[in-house]
């Protein structure tokens, strides 16, 4: 980034939602992925670079797939690593989900909590760090 006359303050040079064709919400499924929803590449998903509507996957779609392939990632991590706004990542993930390329875990519903055993495990895990 050195030597550039603009910086982060200047805002993005490509308006983010251009990458989603102007869509701000994921496709027909209408799911809003939580920031910590985990994204896994669907092993049964087609290897082809084709989206649900038969349209080719964009470079950002492929970048996200590549990141998921290396390890299971949360939506937030994907956004940070792909350097894309979370809203954009949600739309792109919606496409990938629809085309069967990925599976997305549902986060724990609000007002529910993992059982005590899990919490104890977390506490012990933190102590052991």
């Amino acid at each position, binding site marked *: 980034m050195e030597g550039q006359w603009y910086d982060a303050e200047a805002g993005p040079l490509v308006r983010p939602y251009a990458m989603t064709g102007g869509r701000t919400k994921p496709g027909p499924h209408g799911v809003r992925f939580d920031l910590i929803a985990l994204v896994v590449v669907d092993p049964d998903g087609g290897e082809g670079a084709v989206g649900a509507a038969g349209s080719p996957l964009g470079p950002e779609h492929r970048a996200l797939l590549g990141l998921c392939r290396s390890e299971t990632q949360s939506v937030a991590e994907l956004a940070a690593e792909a350097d894309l706004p*979370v809203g954009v990542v949600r739309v792109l993930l919606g496409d990938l989900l629809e085309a069967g390329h990925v599976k997305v875990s549902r986060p724990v519903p609000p007002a529910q909590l993992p059982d005590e055993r899990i919490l104890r495990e977390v506490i012990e895990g933190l102590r052991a760090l």
Partner: protein
Amino acid sequence: MGLHDNGTDGPVAGTGAGADGDDEELAALALKILVAGGFGVGKTTLVGSVSEIRPLRTEEALSRAGELVDDTEGVDQKTTTTVAMDFGRITIRSGLSLYLFGTPGQDRFWFMWDELSQGALGAVVLADTRRLEDCFPAVDYFEHRRIPFVVAVNCFTEARHHGAHEVSRALDLDQGTPVVLCDARDRDSGKEVLIRLVEYAGRVHTARLLESVEPQAGPV
């Protein structure tokens, strides 16, 4: 408080909770903890000191901001202002991770908190005793939404040190809300804050479970 849940019929139904490793990837469980507090109080530092990944910043483009900030009717303003959020990860074991989110400090991004706090296990409110009032909004927010939180007083070296209960009184905290003194730069200190929070969140949820179960429990 004395409820002993043996874990077989815990509050989470059907998540699988990753207890058996059969379908590990899909049963993977992620928990969310928020780190809130005033500007410059050390949120990023705290996230960084306990996280196993270098603090990543994720940016949220605000397509809804126009609705919330402007009163101008009829102007479909899709602003691309971004809100930066720090976050970090702690892997407890394969299939169980803790995610930390530093909440955006500016007031105009309050609505982001609603999304962040959805399903959160709890929150850490970082406080600086020199500017205690900076953490009032966060304390209010979590109290109103009944999200378990601990107040962690970041002990800046140059600051006068106050006792935990002095801080508790000054913030007029509900009884039981833990106040922990910490050094956000120190990993062990940060870990201790998180441990206190998870313990407290567990107690709060157990108490609420009792509250919600008791009325219909016995054939009175």
